[in-house]
């Protein structure tokens, strides 16, 4: 259950090997660049028709099946407009089946219930971005998944600056 999943959305899985040496414990790096993953289409079927199962049949389902047994999720992403780029955001938008339709108050905010168990979230990013903005985003994403933020770290020229 203490599994860590790293979704590396950088082209050709750059820096995957280095990440492998940095994160301790049971860990799997998934390079999403060569996977077939569509944008979430916001259809709500994973909440109201086939609870927990995404209507889009592509390579993301294998990621969901792994997240069910993970405790930590790291996103590795390039940046654009000061935020993660669309490739990084796309794999996060698809996380919706990990939550369910029911709502509750968590951390004083309206939140959806987590379908399986809490998931911690962290971000490794490349390029120019607003560090403080990304830290707040990471906290909010983690809070949505009932977990803690693992932090936001910048990758410099293939090196991780931690």
């Amino acid at each position, binding site marked *: 259950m203490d599994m860590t999943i790293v979704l590396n959305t950088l082209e050709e899985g750059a820096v995957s090997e280095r990440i492998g040496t940095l994160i301790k414990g049971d860990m799997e790096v998934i390079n999403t660049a060569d996977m077939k993953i569509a944008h979430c289409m916001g259809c709500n079927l994973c909440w109201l*028709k086939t609870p927990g199962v995404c209507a889009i049949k592509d390579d993301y389902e294998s990621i969901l099946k792994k997240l*069910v047994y993970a405790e930590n999720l790291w996103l590795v992403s390039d940046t654009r407009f000061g935020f993660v780029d*669309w490739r990084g955001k796309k794999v996060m*938008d698809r996380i919706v089946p990990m939550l369910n339709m029911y*709502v509750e108050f968590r951390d004083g905010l*309206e939140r959806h219930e987590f379908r399986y168990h809490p998931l911690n979230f962290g971000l490794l990013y490349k390029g120019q971005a*607003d560090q403080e903005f990304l830290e707040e985003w990471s906290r909010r994403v983690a809070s949505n998944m009932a977990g803690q933020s693992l932090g936001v770290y910048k990758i410099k020229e293939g090196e991780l600056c931690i």
Partner: protein
Amino acid sequence: MHIVIINGSPRVQKNSNTDKIIQSFGKGLQASGATYELYSLSNRQEWDAAREAFIGHDQIIFALPLFVECVPGIMLEFLDSLPTERKSPAQLSFILHGGFDEGRQFRLGERFLQSLPEQFGCTYGGCLIQGGSFLIRFRDDEKMKKTMDKKMDAYIQMGQSFVSNGNFLTEEARKFIGYEKNPWIVHLLFALFIKRMVRKNFERFAQQWGCTRPLDDKPYLI
């Protein structure tokens, strides 16, 4: 005034809550003598025309749902395909909405949207925010109709307000969201009654959609 509206939601237009909001807002624009053209990013075939419209007009509104605390990935992909310099000035405004109704839920997304116009050589025309959008899709449900009609009427008014003020940088637009944070009484009522009521509604909608599993099902747990 002529306005280009781009629907940044990935949901097909037929089921898009953002589209319903735009239709009401558009009625308000037209009632005040303005015209608009609409592009939906859920349809890839409209991307080229949307890009041309973005380049060629001076009043642009992106309407979008909040997705994982920010802009939907599909809209980020479209933004990535736009030129960042322009020949003639333009104003970029936003209509941001989402399922939850607390103002706090939207502030990070709003902050991101505020930062965008400058990156495209545009000025910022403000961001109109309102939550509680989930039920728009179920607006014909007899229990929801009254509340949803009222909500849609409010967007018509904001369309008129946009034409008379030229932007969303008004007190009226700022207050459109309602509560920044639910008052304690809502937390109490939620625990006592609302939670159960909301669950029942969700279960009823699911049944209408032919759902045969519990909503908190755990399909991938072996």
